[in-house]
């Protein structure tokens, strides 16, 4: 039995369903009952019997394999410490940046640099990996949004992100930690950031891709 409608906003402690469901995210089982644990949107698949609650807010929790964008906060002897907008700092070892064994970290990076990297390990500390195609980002602009909204920025099979790229003629790199880097012409960058802000504010509404397309079409002409 299901107690809420599909795509409803739910709050912690709310009874979502009773019975045999597979919980994917944002809920917990208490005997037969399934309760929400976050403020989010409930997605219920009655046929496949699964429940997913996508949180509306929350800090980024690193997962191995996630692409993230970090800002270098501190340089140690052989590693850099990055702010990745999470509960923990990201650690980037020089060996995971370049093949050159004699490279020195302070020749490669300086504090404030933006690095596009991949989470390689989360046991103990959050380790990052930044060999090509990952690496330092030159120029461009960063925007931080809630990490829970990144899937909407990317869209189904990258539909949203390719629309933004197409209309603004910008390079766009998306980090799962909620940090997005854009680089292009000035007006293009402005427009891309604006579009991302709209996605951030309206991520829980439907028909967003169409609205963003319309918004960009109007601005570009």
């Amino acid at each position, binding site marked *: 039995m299901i107690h809420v409608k599909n795509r409803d906003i739910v*709050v912690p402690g709310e009874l979502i369903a009773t019975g045999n469901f597979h919980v994917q995210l944002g809920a917990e089982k208490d005997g037969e009952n399934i309760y929400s644990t*976050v403020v989010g949107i409930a997605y219920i698949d009655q046929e496949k019997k699964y429940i997913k609650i996508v949180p509306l807010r*929350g800090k980024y929790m690193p997962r191995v394999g996630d692409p993230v964008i970090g800002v270098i906060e501190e340089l140690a002897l052989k590693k850099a410490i990055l702010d990745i907008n999470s*509960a923990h700092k990201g650690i980037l070892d020089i060996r995971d940046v370049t093949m050159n064994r004699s490279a020195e970290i302070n020749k490669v990076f300086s504090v404030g640099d933006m690095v596009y990297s991949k989470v390689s390990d989360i046991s103990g500390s959050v380790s990052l990996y930044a060999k090509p195609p990952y690496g330092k980002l030159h120029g461009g602009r960063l925007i931080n949004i809630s990490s829970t909204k990144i899937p909407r920025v990317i869209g189904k099979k990258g539909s949203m992100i390719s629309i933004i790229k197409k209309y603004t003629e910008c390079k766009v790199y998306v980090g799962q930690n909620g940090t997005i880097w854009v680089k292009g012409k000035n007006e293009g960058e402005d427009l891309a950031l604006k579009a991302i802000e709209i996605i951030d504010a309206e991520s829980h509404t439907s028909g967003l891709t169409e609205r963003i397309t319309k918004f960009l079409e109007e601005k570009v002409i």
Partner: protein
Amino acid sequence: MELIKDGIRIDGRKKDELRDIKIEVGVLKRADGSAYVEWGMNKVYAAVYGPRELFPRFLRRSDKAVLQCKYNMASFSVDERKRPGPDRRSVEISKVTGGALEPVVLTENFPESVINVNIEVVQAEAGTRCAGITAASVALADAGIPMKDLVPACAAGKVSGEIILDLCKEEDNFGESDLPIAMIPRTGGISLLQMDGLMTGEELEEALNLAKKGCEIIYEKQKEALRKRYKGDDHD
């Protein structure tokens, strides 16, 4: 002074009536989650930061996040200037607030980190710890921290020999007994139970049931406030 006359209390309420309550969510933009509660003349802000890195390092727990709660009253929150800074009372309330919230927050999801809960009382009128816990649990949910349930808190007490709900300033000062509780509505558990003054066993039971009823009303208001934050926009 007569505190209760013909079943009507000094501020015009019935025995089982709460003061007016207003809850707002997301009032502080810099915080990860925040809430503001107006409860009668109480005005309380709660701000939640985290999960984030905890310093000093030795306080870290490898199995769960540490929940650090801090309750503070502004020096101008009461008639006579309160000396700023932590005192015995606010240290105690900080501790019991942490105890009230800890059972619902899924701290095991965030090992090695800290969740900071700051409660700031801007105006006080009796019942600030309940208002603080109510605000803090909404702020935690707003910060996107997974939790089993929201935690409503409410007080009951004994004044002029009668059991009443949600004591106001005069009732708190001149009444016989005060019983603030915090509840986990999903399980019916109680995560805060304090009492000052004296009550008999039967009276305690009666007061407890009354306070639970008050908690349920506040629980509805908490849920409503959280939903309202995102309701403005449509979501078929």
